C-alpha cells in the first residue's frame, strides 16, 4: 500500500517535471538536431530515460532543480544520434526564428536572413560552444545550470560561453 502510494507520488512528480520542462527539452533538441521530426524523437527518448532514473535523480539532486539533469540526458542522446547516424546538425532550421513584430516587409525579410545566418553560425561552432549557447539563449539557463548540464565547473562554463560569443561575432562579421 505504502509502496503503491509512493509510486503514485513519484509519477505525479514526474508529470510535473515533464510539464515544466517539455518546452526546454524540445527547444534544446530542435536547435541541436535541426528538424522537428527528430527533435520529437529525441524529446521522447529523453523523458523515457529520465523516467527510468527519476527516483535516483531525485534522491541524488538534494533538492536542486532537475532541469540540468534533463538537458544532460538530451545532450548525451543527441551526441549518440549524431554518432550513430553520422549526421551533423542541420544548420538550416525548418522554421525561421521568431522575429520582432512591427517591421516592414523588407525589414522582416532582412531580419529573418540575419537571424538565419546567426543560427547557422551557432550550428557551425564546436559542439560544446554551440550547446552552451543553446542552453543560455534558447533555454535561459544560468552558468551554474549549464555547468551542471555539461559536467564542467562554473568558471570553465563562463569562459566557454564568452569564447562562443566572441567566435560567433567574428563569424558573423566575416560573412
Amino acid at each position, binding site marked *: 500500500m505504502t509502496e503503491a502510494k509512493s509510486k503514485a507520488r513519484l509519477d505525479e512528480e514526474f508529470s510535473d517535471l*515533464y510539464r515544466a520542462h*517539455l*518546452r*526546454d527539452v*524540445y*527547444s534544446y533538441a*530542435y*536547435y541541436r538536431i535541426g528538424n*522537428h521530426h527528430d*527533435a*520529437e524523437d529525441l*524529446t*521522447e527518448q529523453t*523523458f*523515457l530515460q529520465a*523516467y527510468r532514473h527519476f527516483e535516483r535523480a531525485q534522491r541524488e539532486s538534494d533538492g536542486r532543480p532537475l532541469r540540468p539533469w534533463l538537458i544532460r540526458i538530451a545532450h548525451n542522446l543527441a551526441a549518440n544520434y549524431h554518432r550513430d547516424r553520422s549526421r551533423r546538425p542541420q544548420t538550416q532550421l525548418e*522554421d525561421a*526564428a*521568431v*522575429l*520582432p513584430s512591427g517591421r516592414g516587409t523588407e525589414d522582416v525579410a532582412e531580419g529573418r536572413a*540575419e*537571424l*538565419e545566418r*546567426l*543560427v547557422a553560425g*551557432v550550428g557551425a561552432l564546436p559542439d560544446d560552444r554551440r550547446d552552451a*549557447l*543553446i542552453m543560455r*539563449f*534558447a*533555454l535561459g539557463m544560468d552558468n551554474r545550470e549549464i555547468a551542471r548540464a555539461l559536467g564542467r565547473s562554473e568558471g570553465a562554463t563562463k569562459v566557454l560561453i564568452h569564447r562562443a*560569443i566572441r567566435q*560567433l*561575432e567574428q563569424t*558573423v562579421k566575416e560573412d
Partner: protein
Amino acid sequence: MSDVEQRLRLALAPVEPPGTLTDRFERALTEITGAAVDELADWELRAMRDPRNWIRPAAAVVGGGLAGVTLLIVRTQLQRRRRGRSARALDRAVRDPARQVGRSVRDPARQLGRRLGR
C-alpha cells in the same frame, strides 16, 4: 549585453513542442511499463519451465533439508547428553546416600572393634 547576445535571444527563441508529443510520450510510457510487467510475469513462468532454473530452488530445498537434518542431529545429541547427565546424576543421587549410610554404619563398628581389640 552585446548586440550579438540580443540577436541570439531572438534567433534562438524557445520552440513550442507539437501538441501530439505529449500523447505520443504517454503512449510510449504506457507501452514500456505494460511491457515490463508482462515481461516479468512471462519471465517467471518461463523460468519455472526451464529445468536449468530448477537448480536454485532445488539447491535451496537441499540446503534447507541439510540444515534441518543438522539441526535434528544437534538436538538429538543435546538431548542424549542431557539425558545421560541426568541419569548419571540420578544414579549418583541414589548411590551416594547408600554409601553414606554404609559408611556411617561401618565406621563406628570399626572404631568399636579397634577399641575392643586394644
